[in-house]
């Protein structure tokens, strides 16, 4: 009995010792406030994740150099989910269970964000996604009391589709457009928005053809389109297939302007399509050349730090991190209060003025930001000569 009692005492002592030891170690950690950055850092879309990381890291460094938030340094914790819904679900639980993480920048992909959302809503931790454009996020980001837990400072796919249809008709003066879309949530959502708007404004849709991810041969569909003599081709999909479509369109003799959204916005689009990439018009949430004077400092700083031109994902991530840090500074490192603060940015005059413009949210956590148009000219992305606001 005595032996057992001693053992218990020893274990208790050891546990107490461990506890004190641990809290002594934490004394240092209390000088930092941690935020989670959830994106793909490995896998097929690791390049995109890198862009987000660059933007967040730049913002955090600036804040920390300037003394941090209320004397505490901000520490980003990067969580890799490979843009896989399955991984994102695991990562979201990890984040929710780690009380030190007060808020989230992420996720990058809509599908990953949708998989992580239920955890954030249930456990009460706010996320700002700089890049997820899928429409259905709006329906799934509220808890039972109607509180929004997921915000985004990027526009939605339905906005992009509508915007592009307007641009094609009103700015470019086009009359007949053929539509190519990838058979998935992104492609269909974008295509529907484009086609609906086209019907409303009297832009003629002469053909709608689907393809699936990984397809290589698009000549049957393009041959079909060619008979309808469209003025332009709308490609609702990603750059891999988009580049092949542009290339083959030129080869079948359908050398018309191409339209696309953020999915085509990648240097590989030009590499793969070569000269056929010219005359492609894209929506972009951020354009270096159209940004205000305040953004110039950011653009130059980014180039100095990373040695490359800033892309829209980095710019949006920079602002998303800025908003989250602002919320921590004004409301304190408390998950619920951070959410309250973000939700209170509900009008233009209350918005966060970042490098990508004025960031504020509607009651669904969606932002109201303009789109810019860029185009491919002589093998380079340049701002389109005519913008539409």
């Amino acid at each position, binding site marked *: 009995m005595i032996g057992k009692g001693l053992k218990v005492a020893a274990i208790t002592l050891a546990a107490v010792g461990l506890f004190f030891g641990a809290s002594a170690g934490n004394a240092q950690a209390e000088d930092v406030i941690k935020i989670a950055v959830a994106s793909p850092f490995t896998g097929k879309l690791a390049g995109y994740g890198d862009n987000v990381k660059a933007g967040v890291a730049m913002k955090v460094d600036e804040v920390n150099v300037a003394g941090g938030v209320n004397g505490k340094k901000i520490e980003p914790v990067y969580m890799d989910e490979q843009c896989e819904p399955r991984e994102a679900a695991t990562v979201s639980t990890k984040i929710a269970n780690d009380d030190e993480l007060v808020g989230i920048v992420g996720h990058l992909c809509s599908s990953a964000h949708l998989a992580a959302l239920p955890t954030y809503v249930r456990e009460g931790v706010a996320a700002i996604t700089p890049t997820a454009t899928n429409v259905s996020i709006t329906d799934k980001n509220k808890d039972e009391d109607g509180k929004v837990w997921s915000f985004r400072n990027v526009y939605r796919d339905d906005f992009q589709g509508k915007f592009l249809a307007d641009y094609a008709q009103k700015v470019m003066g086009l009359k007949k457009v053929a539509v190519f879309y990838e058979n998935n949530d992104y492609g269909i959502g974008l295509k529907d928005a484009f086609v609906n708007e086209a019907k409303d404004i009297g832009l003629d849709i002469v053909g709608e053809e689907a393809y699936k991810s990984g397809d*290589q041969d698009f000549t049957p569909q393009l041959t079909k389109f060619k008979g309808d003599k469209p003025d332009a081709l709308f490609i609702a999909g990603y750059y891999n297939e988009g580049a092949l479509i542009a290339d083959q369109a030129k080869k079948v003799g359908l050398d018309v302007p191409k339209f696309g959204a953020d999915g085509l916005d990648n240097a590989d689009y030009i590499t*793969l399509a070569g000269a056929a990439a010219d005359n492609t018009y894209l929506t972009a949430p951020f354009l270096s050349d159209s940004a205000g004077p305040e953004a110039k400092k950011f653009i130059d700083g980014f180039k100095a730090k990373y040695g490359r031109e800033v892309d829209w994902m980095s710019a949006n991530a920079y602002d998303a991190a800025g908003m989250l840090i602002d919320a921590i500074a004004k409301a304190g490192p408390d998950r619920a209060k951070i959410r309250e603060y973000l939700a209170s940015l509900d009008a233009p005059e209350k918005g966060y003025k970042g490098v990508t413009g004025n960031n504020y949210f509607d009651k669904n956590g969606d932002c109201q930001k303009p789109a810019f148009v860029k185009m491919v000219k002589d093998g380079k992305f340049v701002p389109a000569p005519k913008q539409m606001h």
Partner: protein
Amino acid sequence: MFEQQLVNGFTLGLIYALIAVGYTMVYGVIELINFAHGEIYMLGAFLCMTFITVLGAPLYLAIVLSVAACCVIGVLLDIIAYRPLRKAPRLAALITAIGMSIFLQNLAMIIWGSRPLPFVKSALPAFLDEPAINLSDVTISWMQISIYATAIAMMIGLNLIITKTRTGTAMRALAQNRVSAALMGINVNKVISFTFALGSGLGAMAGIMVSMYYNTMYPTMGYTAGVKAFAAAVLGGIGSVPGAMLGGIVLGIAETLGAGYVSSPYRDGVAYAVMILVILFRPSGLLGRAVVDKA
């Protein structure tokens, strides 16, 4: 438009035919479905590109080198992975073939990365993209003409090898009965190696032409093409070389017409439906002979 779709389908079909021949020849001699054949096709494209960019080889030399390298890889594949299992149950060899396919795919990802790469455009003569024949509703580019010429020449050459040479005769003997062929003094392993080399060479050529035609290559490109070509081989009658050629062309045209007239997301579905229909009425394929199981 219909004529143009036929032209498109014919181009695709010839490519399938070139790959399908490799499946069917190997099946003919050792009754193995070589699932790694699609990867040889993929390696053909990547090696050709690498010879141009790294060694600075001119296009024609790069093609020859790449095809030769793929012949060697095909033979090595047989020696390393399949020969030790020659007497093992057929399932063991089949699973090894799938394993080799995954291995080669991942090897390519390690070497060249997983992002799609363009073919070296500057190495291609510019006229290839120009139309060679331009009628009111049909355009055929020089690229397509080159594919036709190369594919048809290779198939005629293959037929000559199989029907006119001693090795070709040995291959046919092996296909009929391996034991008897060995008893007649045929060096079985040598003939099998030759079969792998021949099939791999044709597959590599198909890969090179596809990567030029579509201006893209990626490590998993062999999978879809391989499955399609395998379907073409079955459609034509597995084991029959003219059958594989015909099967490839039928499948290519069916797929293109399916995409053009039925529904583009179901293009593969249309192609496979044609294959299933043929198999339903002719279980041994278009040109396959119904054989009594040797076992």
